[in-house]
């Protein structure tokens, strides 16, 4: 048995962790016990990638099978990391259509969470660019699923958190690009209204996201920096710049668990103040930046999750439908600011319709906050959840470690349908994760 946790390092769970080397061995690993789930690169924050009894590590499956430069279609094994795809195909003029805030996620993990990027409001999520999946079900079958073939299983697998089976291979489409650079425009917003207006105005931008200073209160509540982005063409680059920038390996790393003292309301407020001012100075004009800092600002510091200390941290990511969003977001931010120990930076962005049955996105605004695990944080987050549920919103399963069954059921009305499809693929319930046990499997 091995102690395993998600990126938030909470909870830590004892599980039988296997790393099979062949698809047959994946099958055996799943068939042998009741209660296993696939694990990609472990970037889900909570307990989604930990099996009820056994966890099947998939990063060893990192072969690319074929690529067609005419269509951008690529067939690959589920353990390939987006970082690897970007490094290999970026210089050849192709990037994934959708990338989350870290490039160290696997294709399987990106499908299972139907991850969203800064372009979800106009281009949708990872699942939209997915043609087909080779799936190993809990029943022991290996089936190809797509929009046309086994379509129920397809839409349940996109955003299905690994619970329909193990994704062995997938065919996805890559985006042709001229360069690996992004033309970025920074807008500073002095409060939440201005931030939401700026994001609405950014609806036509391919990429948009706001970094909120969640330490700011009163008239500055919700002040933020909005980053809009477009793929830059070759003629927009400085003379002599390479069409594809070099992605450096994370150089710095956090070598030890930081004593949780280093993160307190003073250091957080000081950091946010500085960050906001530096960003505001850049606001206005547009300039060209490498895709790496634009999409993956946190990747330059590896193991940054250790900043939050030994006890780990929780991410709270909700989405609130457009209609009532302003009031609820204001309320949440107010409570967070009063509390004072939330993240360095919170992220606010607009989402569109999700593609999978259990996909997180719905048209509205999503807010993501980090909290160190301490004292009464669980109660505090339950309080926030009540606001989210009342507004018709939901929480992102890839970030969750603690929501209640009630919160979950209120947010995901497709659950019954999803469980029916699971049952047909896996009548004996072989596939179960700590997350599914916590939130919806019968006990």
């Amino acid at each position, binding site marked *: 048995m091995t102690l395993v946790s998600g990126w938030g390092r909470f909870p830590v769970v004892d599980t039988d962790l296997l790393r099979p080397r062949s698809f047959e061995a994946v099958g055996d690993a799943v068939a042998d016990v009741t209660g296993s789930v696939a694990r990609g690169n472990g970037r889900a924050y909570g307990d989604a990638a930990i099996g009820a009894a056994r966890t099947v590590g998939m990063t*060893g499956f990192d*072969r*690319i*099978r074929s*690529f067609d430069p005419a269509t951008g279609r690529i067939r690959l*094994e589920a353990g390939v990391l987006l970082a690897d795809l970007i490094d*290999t195909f970026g210089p050849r003029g192709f990037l994934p259509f959708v990338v989350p805030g870290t490039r160290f996620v696997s294709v399987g993990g990106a499908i299972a969470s139907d991850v969203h990027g800064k372009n979800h409001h106009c281009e949708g999520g990872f699942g939209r660019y997915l043609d087909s999946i080779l799936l190993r079900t809990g029943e022991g079958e290996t089936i190809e699923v797509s929009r046309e073939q086994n379509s129920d299983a397809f839409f349940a697998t996109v955003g299905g958190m690994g619970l329909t089976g193990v994704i062995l291979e997938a065919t996805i489409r890559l985006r042709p690009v001229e360069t690996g650079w992004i033309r970025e425009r920074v807008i500073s917003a002095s409060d939440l209204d201005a931030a939401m207006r700026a994001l609405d105005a950014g609806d036509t931008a391919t990429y948009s996201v706001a970094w909120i200073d969640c330490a700011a209160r009163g008239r500055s509540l919700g002040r933020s920096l909005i980053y809009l982005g477009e793929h830059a063409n070759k003629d927009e680059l400085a003379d002599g710049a390479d069409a594809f920038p070099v992605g450096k390996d994370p150089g710095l790393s956090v070598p030890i668990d930081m004593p949780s003292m280093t993160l307190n309301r003073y250091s957080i407020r000081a950091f946010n103040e500085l960050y906001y001012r530096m960003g505001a100075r850049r606001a206005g004009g547009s300039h060209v930046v490498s895709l790496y800092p634009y999409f993956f600002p946190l990747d330059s510091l590896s193991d940054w999750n250790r900043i939050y200390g030994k006890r780990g941290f929780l991410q709270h990511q909700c989405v609130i439908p457009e209609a009532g969003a302003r009031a609820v977001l204001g309320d949440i931010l107010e409570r967070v600011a009063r509390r004072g120990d939330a993240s360095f930076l919170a992220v606010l962005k607009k989402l569109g319709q999700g593609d999978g049955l259990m996909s997180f996105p719905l048209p509205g605004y999503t807010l993501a906050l980090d909290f160190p695990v301490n004292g009464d944080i669980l109660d505090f987050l339950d309080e926030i959840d009540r606001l989210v549920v009342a507004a018709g919103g939901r929480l992102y399963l890839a970030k969750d470690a603690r929501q209640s069954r009630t919160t979950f059921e209120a947010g995901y009305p497709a659950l019954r349908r999803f469980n029916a499809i699971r049952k047909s693929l896996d009548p004996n319930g072989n596939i179960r994760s700590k997350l599914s046990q916590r939130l919806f499997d019968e006990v």
Partner: protein
Amino acid sequence: MTSRKSVLVLGGSSDIGRAAARAFAKAGYDVGLAGRDVAALDPDAADLRTRYSVEVGVYRFDVLDTAAFEGFVGSLPTLPDVVISIVGLLGTQESAQSDLAHATTIMRSNYEGPSLILGLFAEKFLGRGSGTLVGVSSVAGDRGRASNYVYGSAKAGFSGFLSGLRARASRGGVHVVTVKPGFVRTKMTEGMKLIGPLTVEAPVVGDAILRAVENKTDVVYVSGKWRLVMLIIKTLPEAVFKKLKF
């Protein structure tokens, strides 16, 4: 035909083998992958072609089948520029203590086979006057340990073979690299307790092999820390060493 350099990886489906093949393909080498199970090598061959647009051949090679070695070398379409032997078998020390067949397999897989095949290529390379041979040995060969001396002694033999071959071949324009990876997280070490700061992932070893070939390094300890650790372990007097639980 291309004028690209080529590398042959013996033990191509091992974790280090795959990593080495990727490192060389990325650097523009055409690749030959050799292993016991040819079908298992096909996905890796496709991967290398798709990623790096290099030519990749797949060959059957069994390190225990020494009688087939000459035929194997003769059947290759071209004589590669670089040959890497990553073949090896950890086995189980405890069984090897009483099971002669198992001990023999460990010895042959880590010493006899790898030495003979690299020796054969050495003759061809010397005939041509160029080429690089890489043997992946182990820090376990630097000093016998109570816990794995069957494996360790075979690796010691292999390291000795490589060092002698290097001395002779260098005069004929052929370079020999000995790689001692230390702890690597691979299939072979799965389930073993590895010391975190001394453990590396397979791609780190792949890159180190490429660098050693290009820089003509003689002996590579993949993680610099190992050189120091082994220096200490090698210099401990036997009287002290045998008392250590190591």
